[in-house]
């Protein structure tokens, strides 16, 4: 060592410093992921900017809370999300948090972590939720998932206000202005008035675009129609109640309505009604504002004549079709605390506001107190086109999922097998009698009652 210029003390000090320095990144890495790892499978949004906004919210939260995030957006096209849920529930591994479509919470409730603590805090802060979320996500008194903002949608009427005024004499912008009040004529917006308008528009060559096939857009508006008439096929106890005057009346009404719809509505899918409106061939559809958003891009002349407003009412009331998503945490998740914390974070008003803005007003938060975001006031043209997309007090409407109030395990089968739409098709397309359609439905419903 002689003559090398380093003392023993210098070498030891350098060694110690080196050891500390080399250990620092380890400490640092550990600090970055102190909250562990969280794998998320969220819904792949129809609106492309919806995914970007969600990614930013989630990643910012992960960074702040030192949680390593793995984020997948899973499409509902081709039921890819249902297949993922089925596979993960069988394998009991996969993501920690998943976005569950409408009926999946009940189906997988045994494998979902209770969320009562999260829901308790959210309800305390933001008030009441719409009862449909409770029907779909509360199983045996326990919340098994949290109603999601991203992906949840209403399907009110979306119509060409110019055509309705011209051919049916309805000024829907006056009836339902972009303001916290209902205008003249809103009280008379009934299914009878709807039928008259449909007849007038059919005569004018711009028929209403209402699908009567086996896809969700058909099931949703038909579900609301049935409930408006008080036509319940299965009650909350699970008893079949299809043989009733209300069911006969709604089928009779639907037959008259179908006679003024395009002849091919029985084979329409979820895109057919959008195309009918965007192409200018139809005066009215039931849909979220996605059809208007596409028209804004592809057919601006059509888009600027569009207006969203509530569906008509019947003897039992007015019911806006509603299709919610839920955020659920698997019970086999290895990071439940982080999963719950993130879901609670996503459900806060600030995040809801961001998601609504990013989706051009498409997303519907589950809390009534969150329907005052300015996105719905400012979107256009025409300005205020989606103001009446969320259900507002002046609408006198309730959000509704088709096949409610049947127990969810029966309702999911009724919904996915489009029982109500098939009843209408039998009467309208096949020319069967109302009683024959009811007898057919009773037989199918008996099959759905098995446990």
């Amino acid at each position, binding site marked *: 060592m002689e003559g090398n210029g380093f003392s023993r003390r210098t070498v030891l000090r350098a060694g110690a410093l080196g050891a500390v320095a080399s250990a620092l990144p380890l400490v640092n890495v550990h600090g970055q992921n102190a909250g562990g790892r969280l794998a998320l499978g969220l819904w792949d949004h129809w609106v492309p900017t919806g995914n970007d906004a969600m990614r930013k919210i989630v990643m910012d939260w992960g960074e702040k809370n030192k949680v390593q995030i793995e984020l997948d957006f899973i499409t509902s096209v081709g*039921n890819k999300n*249902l*297949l993922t849920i*089925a596979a993960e529930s069988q394998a009991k591994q996969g993501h920690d948090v998943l976005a569950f479509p409408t*009926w*999946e919470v*009940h*189906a997988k409730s*045994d494998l979902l972590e209770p969320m009562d603590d999260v829901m308790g805090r959210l309800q305390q802060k933001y008030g009441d939720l719409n009862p449909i979320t409770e029907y779909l996500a509360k199983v045996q008194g326990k919340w098994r998932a949290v109603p999601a903002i991203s992906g949840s949608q209403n399907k009110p009427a979306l119509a060409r206000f110019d055509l309705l005024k011209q051919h049916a004499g309805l000024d829907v912008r006056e009836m339902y202005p972009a303001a916290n009040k209902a205008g003249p004529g809103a009280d008379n917006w009934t299914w009878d008035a709807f039928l008259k308008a449909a007849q007038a528009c059919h005569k004018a060559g711009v028929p209403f675009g209402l699908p009567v*096939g*086996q*896809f969700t857009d058909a099931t949703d508006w038909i579900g609301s129609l049935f409930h408006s008439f008080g036509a319940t096929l299965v009650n909350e106890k699970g008893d079949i109640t299809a043989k009733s005057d209300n069911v006969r009346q709604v089928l009779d009404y639907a037959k008259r309505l179908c006679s003024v719809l*395009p*002849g*091919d*509505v*029985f*084979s*329409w*899918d979820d895109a*057919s009604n959008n*195309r*009918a409106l965007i*192409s200018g*061939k139809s005066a009215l559809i039931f849909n979220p504002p996605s059809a208007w958003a596409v028209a804004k891009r592809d057919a601006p002349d059509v888009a600027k004549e569009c207006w969203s407003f509530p569906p008509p009412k019947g003897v039992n009331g007015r019911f806006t079709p509603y299709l919610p998503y839920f955020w659920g945490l698997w019970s086999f998740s290895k990071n439940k605390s982080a999963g719950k914390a993130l879901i609670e974070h996503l459900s806060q008003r600030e995040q809801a506001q961001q998601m609504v803005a990013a989706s051009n007003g498409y997303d519907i938060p589950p809390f009534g107190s969150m329907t005052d975001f300015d996105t719905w006031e400012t979107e256009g043209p025409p300005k205020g086109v989606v103001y009446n997309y969320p259900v507002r007090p002046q609408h006198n409407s309730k959000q509704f999922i088709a096949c409610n109030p049947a127990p969810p*395990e029966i309702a*999911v*089968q009724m919904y*996915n*097998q489009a029982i109500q739409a*098939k009843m209408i*098709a*039998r009467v309208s*397309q*096949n020319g069967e009698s109302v009683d024959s359609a009811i007898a057919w439905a009773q*037989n*199918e419903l008996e*099959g759905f009652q*098995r*446990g």
Partner: protein
Amino acid sequence: MSQGTLSAPTAPAAVSPHSTLRRLARRNSTTAFLLTLPLILLVLGLVVYPFLYALYLATLNKRMTKFIGIDNFTFLFSRQTFWDVVLQSVLFAVTAVVVKALIGFILAHVLHALPAKGQRKWRGMLLVPWVIPPAISTLAWWWLFDPSYSAFNWALAGIGVDPVPWLGQAGWARFSVILVNVWYGSPFFMIMYLAALKSVPDQLYEAAAIDGATGWQKLRFVTFPMMRNIISITVLFSLIVTFANFDIVRILTNGGPLDKTHVFATYAFQVGIQSGDIPLGATVSLFMFPLLAIFAIFILRGVNRRTKEMA
């Protein structure tokens, strides 16, 4: 004399473990087993295990918490919709396979008769429907059949014909799904039959010509008997694939209108995945097995009989 016979053990007690292994490795049967092992593992993992698992699932209740024996099967027997699905599956598969076989047979003969120079070009073009992923080609067909903007209807309107409800009425919808399946599957028959045609010895035709046979007689008494086995095997193979078809019906009609185009796979998906009853979905899909087994027994029995006759 086989390697196995040459290396047959003589005194097991005196043999060391090393030499036993070496002898085992030298046997033809061992080599054959090892070579087929990857395939055996694939079949076990991708065919046998899923089949047994489906059988297990079919014995569970809807929430998969309880063993219910054959209740799922008896339940299906009591449903009219299920019997409609059985009928439609058979109608779909049998009609599509017969038409595909017929078109394939004709196309193969036309191609065979073409001069060798241009044959490859035509063969390539006729194979195009078969090489396009069916999900994509079916989407293109869907645009042609689209309820409101059908290109076919647009063309029909040009000659004054009323629009056809391609996907909106039971009869037309069944026709449409079968048509797309035929379009997609005919090239497979064509290529198989073409291969069979090329293997028929020319001497047989020459002998038939000397005997004064007409074109039809050559087809009836030479070509057809020589192709019967390949026709049978191709029909069986296509029946299996067509029976299990999912994408065409799913994309074109989703089983509608009024469930009149549902086949086993789409109905199983609707019941199992969409309606949350995986055991019942598995039960529906299992019904393909006995039906296909019946077809397979009849077809393979014929093949065996003819093979023995030829031997």
